[in-house]
């Protein structure tokens, strides 16, 4: 038995799981990431490392919907994420301690885990009037974000608010709200747009980080390509109806009952990229178009202003400025948003961003029988 094998057995014992359970669990994680089985040893090693990576979750101008969304994660389940995969040391919604105990927990991470922890941010950051519109423990969101994000290994901005200021940022933006990447420029960040973020995607990013110690490849808005690289309209279960010219024209009409296309009811699917039709919500139960309502493009940058009025047909949405059909609009956006990426090449995109050899992680020598 090799030393690596002994370590693995010790790690398994520590987790109280059988080898079979562990391999099953890691296979499921790889499936979430659409990665082939050859990454299994790496995934197993990641999950069984002696020290769990430290994560803190900050909430600023938020509705806590993104925290709630995270609680709904099914693969892996939230208890596995917060207890077994990460050491989840600060999260106001669910952490045990309050007040000074909470503040101390966050301070400890920033000082003692400097450069090694992950920070998830939920909510926008108000910058008007010296940041008085959001304080925690007497400190402004700006001050806390700056300190915690700058000392982290990476920042994950979950939801529309953390990505770009969300509805607070909508005209006239009374509190000067910004997303994290604008409020704290220059940090390493990945944006998980959506209102709320989809926990299936965020869990995949967390597992990716765990496995490869890096974030997946992103688009120009810093959104991971595996989740935001494809037009909703192209993946939509109602697309055939669009192509055949079968549209819902009044809520509850014959076409609505038959599941026809919602484009004429204001659906923004042709202008939005997201894997919503594919991963869906709440353990793949449904998604807004599946439930009969148009898409509001909640995973698109600044969607509150750019994609409303939500019941107007797309070409009349201010911002596009040209008379065009939904189909053409979709094609135009493909070119603009994910230039050079073929719509069906998604699986290739999940690989970690290429690195120079000097920075690549050391090859993992653990072997696992599958």
């Amino acid at each position, binding site marked *: 038995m090799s030393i690596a094998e002994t370590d693995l057995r010790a790690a398994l014992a520590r987790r109280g799981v059988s080898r079979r359970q562990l391999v099953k669990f890691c296979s499921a994680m790889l499936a979430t990431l659409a990665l082939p089985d050859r990454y299994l040893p790496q995934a197993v090693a990641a999950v069984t490392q002696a020290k769990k990576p430290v994560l803190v979750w900050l909430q600023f*101008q*938020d*509705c*806590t*919907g993104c925290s*709630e969304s995270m*609680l*709904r994660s099914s693969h892996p*389940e*939230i*208890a596995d994420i*917060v*207890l077994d995969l990460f*050491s989840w*040391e600060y999260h*106001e*919604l*669910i*952490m*045990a*301690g*309050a*007040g000074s*105990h*909470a503040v101390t*927990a966050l301070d400890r991470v920033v000082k003692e885990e400097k450069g090694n922890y992950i920070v998830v941010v939920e909510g926008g950051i108000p910058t008007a009037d010296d*940041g*008085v*519109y*959001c*304080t925690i423990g*007497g400190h*402004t969101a700006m001050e806390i974000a700056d300190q915690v994000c700058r000392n982290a290994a990476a920042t994950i901005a979950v939801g529309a608010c953390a990505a770009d200021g969300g509805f*607070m940022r909508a005209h*006239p933006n*009374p*509190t000067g*709200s910004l997303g994290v990447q604008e409020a704290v420029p220059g940090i390493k960040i990945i944006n998980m747009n959506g209102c*709320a973020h989809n926990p299936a995607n965020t869990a995949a990013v967390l597992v990716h980080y765990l496995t490869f110690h890096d974030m997946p490849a992103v688009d120009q808005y810093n959104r991971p390509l595996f989740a935001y690289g494809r037009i909703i309209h192209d993946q939509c279960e109602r697309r055939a109806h669009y192509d055949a010219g079968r549209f819902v024209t009044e*809520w*509850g009409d014959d076409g609505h*009952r*038959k*599941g026809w296309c919602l484009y004429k009811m204001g659906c923004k699917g042709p202008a939005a990229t997201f894997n919503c039709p594919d991963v869906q*919500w*709440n353990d793949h*139960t*449904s*998604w807004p*178009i599946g*439930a*009969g*309502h148009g898409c509001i493009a909640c995973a698109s940058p600044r969607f*509150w*202003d750019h994609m*409303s*009025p*939500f019941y107007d047909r797309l070409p009349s949405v*201010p*911002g596009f400025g040209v008379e065009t059909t939904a189909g053409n609009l979709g094609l135009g956006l493909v070119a603009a948003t994910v230039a050079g990426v073929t719509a069906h090449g998604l699986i290739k995109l999940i690989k970690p961003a290429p690195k120079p050899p000097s920075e690549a992680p050391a090859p993992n020598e653990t072997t696992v029988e599958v």
Partner: protein
Amino acid sequence: MARLVIDPVTRIEGHLRIEAQLDGGKVSDAWSSGTMFRGMEIVLRDRDPREAWIWAQRICGVCTVVHALASVRAVENALGIDVPENARLVRNLLAGSQMVQDHVIHFYHLHALDWVDVASALKADPVKTSSIAQSISDYEKSSATYFRGIQQRVKMVVDSGQLSLFASGYWGHPAYQLPPEMNLLAVAHYLEALNFQKDFIRIHAALGGKNPHPQTFLVGGMSTAMDPNEPFAVINPERITFLQGLIKTARRFVEQVYIPDVLAVAPFYKDWFSRGEGLGNFLSYGDYAAANGDDPSTFLFPRGIVLNRDLTTVYPVDPAKITESVSHSWYEYSSGDANGRHPAEGETNPKYSGPKPPFGFLDVDKKYSWVKSPRYDGKPMEVGPLARMIVGYAAGQKDIRAAVDGVLKKLNAPASVLYSTLGRLAARAVESHLMATQLQVWLDQLSTNLDHGNVKIFNPVHWDPGTWPAKASGFGWHEAPRGSLGHWIEIGSGTIKNYQAVVPTTWNAGPRDSQGQRGAYEASLAATPVADPARPLEILRTIHSFDPCLACAVHVIDAQGREYTLPMVR
């Protein structure tokens, strides 16, 4: 005398700060402050009223659904739209399942750690835990092996030295009184409830497309098209079967896990049946009429007011008597801050006048919160599950009477114990059971309509803004999980001219008013013992018993005199 600050108050929604004056180991005075402001109402101005619900729902993602519902009700009230019965039923199923979901998450994930010492669970004998579990419930997961597995999992987390969410807890605090075996039982159910909430809420995905923030409301109905013969209809027989399974699961979880746990934990904390009462005034707008038409006499949760604990009189609710004071909130009224204003004429200019951050203490003699202070006829009110159960009990609603009496009998306690921290927990559990039962009734009605070919889900009469009057105003009320919620809207020339929301946590968490009357949180903390000011567990118990939701509470604004137009792109 020492001033204690708890900021952030965790295991709540949003940003709450409590400052408390301690005198002789007890709270002698307290101040509640909301420390975050977003400005939803400013942002809503001049937008399409038909999409107001999409925006307003984002007031809160914990009490998701409830603001969407209040918003469409407000617009429908303003424009005179009656929604079809099926739309009412689907809305009830969404809101009712939200209530059950919210209460379960509150008890296990937001409140339990105030009563349950996780570290103590390691000392438990799983065999004894198993026999306790089997003595209080028929829930299937009750073997010693199961509890040993849970204990092992906790031990591994502790042994790793990385305690994650539990690292900051108050373990070993003298106020924890459960034996180790009960603590183990509760920790097991904390994990079970995590599983339950993610599974049960698929009811929102089925009827709302997703959770949080379901996306199927419409002014005039719902987008969940129904058809008994169409496989692609959102509601068809297959989906009814799916919903049926989820509702059964919820009822089982509430009956076999949640209620038995509340009843088993409460006797160890009898002191808390006489602590934490607060105002003694209770308000419920009431909700869930038996049929279309919204007749209050048929409400599942009756409408009314109970004053000074007096259960003999239920006063009617007059919408005109609601006002909001800003004398201690960071806003200004053009008419001066001495008098409150009715939400329909709501006017607020945000004007921060607190200390410059970073700060140590708030100046509580002046303005100290982003939350306003709603008053009914000048009086502060508590809203929420306890208010609903008390108003319902006093009004003689027979299901509420039977359920409350049943719980009191099991606890061998008089009705007066309801006016307390634990009373709020008990009320929430009772209400969850009533609602889990009611969900079945609504699903059966929906299913019957589907079978009979009654598939009307939308009333198109006023979808076209061309049919609207030049000016209209209205309001929409809802009994949300945390209490009485109201949205007020003014529509002019087809767009939103004014939007105001007075929400449950505004009632409960608001600061003092111009008369110096305390809000519900502030009043409830009077005389709370604090054994260790560095670990103010006792204060958290009472504050958490209200299930605070601060994002809801702070959002209100209508900046008069400022002109807003839709941005031209943008």
